[in-house]
Every structure is written in C-alpha cells, then in structure tokens.
C-alpha cells in the first residue's frame, strides 16, 4: 500500500467496524435457511405443474386411453428433467467470492453462456417426445371421427404455434448467449 491519492477518501468511515462475530454467524445461518426455503418453494412450484400432468396420465390410463397416458407421462417426465436441469445448469453459482474479480465474473458469464446456448437440449428437448406423441394422438383420434384432412387442418394451428414459440425461445436465447460471449471475449482482451 502507498499513500492514498485522496486523503479525504480514506479518512471517511474511519470508525467503521465489522459486525460482531456472533451476530454474523447467526446471519450466515439465516441465509442458509433462506436458501433452503427458496429451494423448497421452487420444488413446490414444480410440483404444481407436475402433479396435474401425472394425474391426467393416470386418468387416461384408467379409462384405457394408453396413447394419451403415455404422452402425458412423457410430458410429466419432461417437467422433472427440466426442473432438474434448471437446478444444475441455471441455478445460483456456488459462492466463491474469494477468487480474483475477473475470474469471478468470467465464471458467471461462462455459466450463463453455456446455459443459454444449450437451451434446445436441456429446456426444450425433454418436452419434445411428449408433445409429439400428444399432438399425434389427438390427430389420430380426431381422424377416426372426422377424417384425416379435417384432423390435420384442426391441428395445424396448435402445431405451428408450438413450433413458432420454440423457434422464438431458441432465437432469443441464442441472441442473449451471443451478447454474453461478446462480454467474455472482452474480458479476455482486458488481461
């Protein structure tokens, strides 16, 4: 350390002190409890989506609609996989604030970049088998009653709307990933 460039800067807050260790240990404990509670809430939110899909699959099986049951079961499995992926890929980083500042920032950017870039694999992919089977089953059941032409015409709007939404999600995430990649490249230029 050398003489500070502005004595007034370093003269400020001269009487500041660290929080008492007992209080800070209690606060650290509260923080961990908050994280656990937040995780529980996220699991509960996932359950709210998962339970109806699973119940619908069971109900379909109960009445003998096995194709629907399988499709809804696959959708429920997709929800489980995506929730798990959200936790492992897009959740909070392990806190390691003692690393050099540029490494800390680079690790955050890299994790965000990987998560955004691979959205089709970990966020959209798990829903594809269930959705394909669900739309196929609905089309097939409609065709039995209305004929294939009417069934396909009826399904065109939801299918294309789904495909459009998927393309939009992938494009937005790719765009965000490119912006983070540019920031990562800029960090490499700094060193």
């Amino acid at each position, binding site marked *: *350390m*050398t*003489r*500070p*460039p*502005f*004595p*007034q*800067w*370093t003269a*400020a*807050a*001269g*009487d*500041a*002190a*660290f*929080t008492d*260790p007992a209080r*800070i*240990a209690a*606060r*650290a404990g509260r*923080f961990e409890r908050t994280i656990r509670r937040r995780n529980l809430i996220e699991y509960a939110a996932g359950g709210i989506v998962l339970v109806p899909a699973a119940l619908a699959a069971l109900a379909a099986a109960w009445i003998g609609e096995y194709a629907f049951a399988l499709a809804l079961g696959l959708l429920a499995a997709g929800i489980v996989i995506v929730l798990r992926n959200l936790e492992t890929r897009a959740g909070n980083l392990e*806190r*390691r*604030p*003692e*690393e*050099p*500042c*540029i*490494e*800390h*920032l680079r690790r955050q950017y890299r994790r965000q970049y990987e998560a955004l870039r691979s959205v089709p694999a970990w966020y959209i992919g798990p829903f594809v088998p269930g959705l394909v089977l669900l739309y196929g089953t609905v089309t097939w059941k409609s065709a039995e009653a209305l004929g294939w032409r009417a069934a396909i015409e009826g399904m065109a709007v939801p299918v294309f709307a789904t495909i459009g939404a998927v393309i939009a999600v992938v494009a937005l995430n790719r765009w965000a990933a490119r912006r983070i990649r540019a920031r990562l490249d800029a*960090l490499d230029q*700094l*060193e």
Partner: protein
Amino acid sequence: MEDAIEQLYREAGRQFAPAIARLARTVERDADRARDLEQEIHCALWTSLARFRGDCALKTWVYRVAHNVAADHVARAVRGPARVPLEEIGELPGAANPETEAAERLVLDRLAELVRRLPRLDAQVIVLWLEGERARDIAEITGLSEGAVNVRVYRVKTLLSSHFDEPKSDESPTEGVLS
C-alpha cells in the same frame, strides 16, 4: 476451527472495516442499502474464511470477497445508471449532491458517481486505487495484469487532471501510487 475463523475475522475487521464501509457507500448511494451491503460483505467474508489457507495475503482475500460481493449486489439491482467503459468517459459525471462545497469533496463525490457508472472491473480498480493500493496488489486482487491496471488508473488521472492544479510537490493527490 471456529476460533481460528473468528480470529481472522477480527483481524480483517481491525484492518479493513473502514475500507469495506467506504466501498459499500460508494457503490450504494442509499445509506440503508449501503449498510445492508456492508453486512452482506461481512457475512460473505465470515463464511469464506473457513476456506482461507494462507495462499494469498489476508488483504487480498478480504478485498476480493468485498469487491465480488459488491459487484454481485450491483448486478442484482434492477435499476441504476447505464454502464460506460472508462475509455469512453470524457469527464467526471456530476455529483449526486449539488450542495457539496469543498473542492476535493466535490471531486470525491464525482469520483464515487463515476465508480457507480463504470463496468465492474474498471470500478474495482479505481476503488482500490483510491484506497492507496499499488498496481501489483490491485492486479493480484482483480486478476488483471499490472499493465491493464496502470492503463485504467492513468485514464482516471487524466479525467482528474482538469480538476486540480499542476502538482507542486510530492503532496500531489495522484502521485506515488503507481511508481
């Protein structure tokens, strides 16, 4: 183990509590939020000290934790001034407090405002320079090269030069930091 952590924590507090308070008050203009951030840094430091093995100086460890926690805190904030890289800033931004009278105080307020508007690594370098840290130490804390640190400090000195007379002696406010 707990005793060793407490000892390190108290030692860090003796040496760096004012610097951490200044950091919190620089990145957070609101006094209550600055106090919250200060405690968040204390808490992160307490938790991190269980991993301290003496591979770097306590000062390096404390500053890394403090600056990373402060930067994460700023990144979480929904609102704030747009970030502008140091090389694109032509002059010091206006201070938040127009009532300030003393010339140096005014410049310090404007420096604090500058720090709030800089990208996080630029801001970290400038705050550490204001604390009187050497380029070598700033480089170790931030992970930047000494050259990159020197470039940033030079830019701030250039920004500041219009606010001060030519240095008359070794009392120059910007002298001696990066020899």
